[in-house]
């Protein structure tokens, strides 16, 4: 007992240090949100990783079938949505006599075979090709956003010029005002953000406003592209640059839909004719 006491006295600095240090660390963890959350998350890492491991083994048993089913179902649903949208938007003005517009877009389900987000020019590879009806120039979307444009096809694969590419431009429309701009990647650094160009200076833009595709380019109208993050980015011209948060999660793409525009030939021919005349 006496030795213990001597030991405590001899190293009292260390013991006081431990006491006070633990007290202050407890203060830190209890009263600061950031440190508390990182403390909790690091203790959850141990338990969470165990459950995650178990779950990942379990889910592997039926993973393939589930994926196939879901992707096929999504494709069918998307086609239905597109049909419904077209009926709705025209219903109160004109009765549809010709239903040709309803079948304008078909969706081909494809898996992403290769993907990049960290380069300056990003491309994806899909596991479907010309044998499945994919052609050069078709648009590619995912369940919640725009992915890119088909660049080249082989029999069983096709390469996609991602939206994260300086040459990709997508025509978009702002939700509240209906002003049309074009979406580019812009910053060439972060795959979560893009820039909407060519919005005239006088347009009032709200933060968190949604941005949709306009339907003028390869993509059907009304697909959500993202929401506006910053409105004040001025390019010094008479146009606004809007920074938007892309709704597509490019770092985690698995299933995509290739948009097949069945009337694209007709549209292109007509537009080529009018340009010749003009």
């Amino acid at each position, binding site marked *: 007992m006496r030795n213990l006491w001597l030991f405590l006295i001899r190293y*009292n*600095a*260390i013991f*006081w*240090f431990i*006491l*006070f*240090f633990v*007290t*202050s*660390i*407890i*203060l*830190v*963890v*209890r*009263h*600061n949100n*950031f*440190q508390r959350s*990182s*403390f909790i998350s690091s203790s959850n890492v141990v338990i969470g990783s165990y459950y995650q491991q178990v779950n990942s083994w379990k889910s592997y048993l039926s993973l393939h079938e589930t994926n196939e089913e879901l992707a096929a179902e999504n494709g069918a649903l998307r086609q239905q949505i597109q049909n419904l949208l077209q009926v709705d938007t025209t219903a109160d003005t004109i009765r549809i006599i010709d239903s040709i517009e309803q079948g304008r877009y078909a969706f081909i389900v494809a898996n992403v075979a290769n993907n990049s987000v960290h380069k300056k020019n990003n491309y994806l590879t899909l596991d479907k090709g010309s044998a499945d009806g994919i052609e050069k120039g078709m648009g590619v979307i995912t369940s919640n956003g725009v992915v890119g444009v088909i660049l080249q096809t082989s029999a069983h694969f096709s390469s996609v010029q991602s939206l994260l590419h300086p040459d990709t431009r997508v025509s978009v429309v702002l939700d509240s005002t209906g002003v049309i701009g074009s979406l580019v990647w812009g910053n060439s650094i972060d795959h979560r953000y893009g820039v909407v160009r060519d919005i005239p200076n006088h347009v009032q833009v709200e933060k968190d406003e949604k941005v949709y595709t306009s339907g003028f380019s390869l993509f059907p109208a009304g697909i959500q592209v993202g929401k506006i993050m910053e409105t004040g980015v001025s390019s010094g011209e008479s146009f606004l640059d809007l920074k938007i948060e892309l709704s597509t999660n490019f770092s985690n793409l698995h299933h995509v839909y290739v948009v097949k525009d069945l009337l694209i030939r007709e549209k292109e021919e007509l537009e080529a004719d009018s340009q010749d005349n003009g």
Partner: protein
Amino acid sequence: MGSILIINIVRFIIVILLQVALFKNMGYYNIATIYPYIFFIFLLPIGLPNLVLFLVSFLTGLAVDAFYDSAGVHASACVGLALFRIFFHKITLEVDLKESFNTPSLGLMGTKWFLSYVFFGTFVHHFFLFLIEAFTFSNFMYTLASSILSSIFTTCVILLMSLLVYKRKSRIGNI
């Protein structure tokens, strides 16, 4: 004895006021920030009992924390500094000096001793501080770099402050 207490209380108030009113707004981006309030802990009397030293450091840290809205961060760093101070004194000081109640100032202890005392102490404090602020060992190099740069910065400011109140009364010879 009473005068030492009063001097230290006045010093505490001045140092904390300077820290939260002036030095809080200074810094080189996020890389180097300065915390010269720890000068107060450096200058506490040498023979102070360990418990009192820890208690005073802890309270100093808490006082600064109150202004920085970071309960406990500065307190834990100051407790770390107090431990360093005890070890440094144990290693470098002679017995009679260790038991006296002198203030370990620049004039009393000489430049060499004082400089290493302040620099290493500042580094220990800043290292604890940035590590607890970041609360992770990832980005460790960034933490280390910013604590080294900040300690250089803080050491310069503390040296300037101690030169301002420099009074030569060397007891252990001119080193």
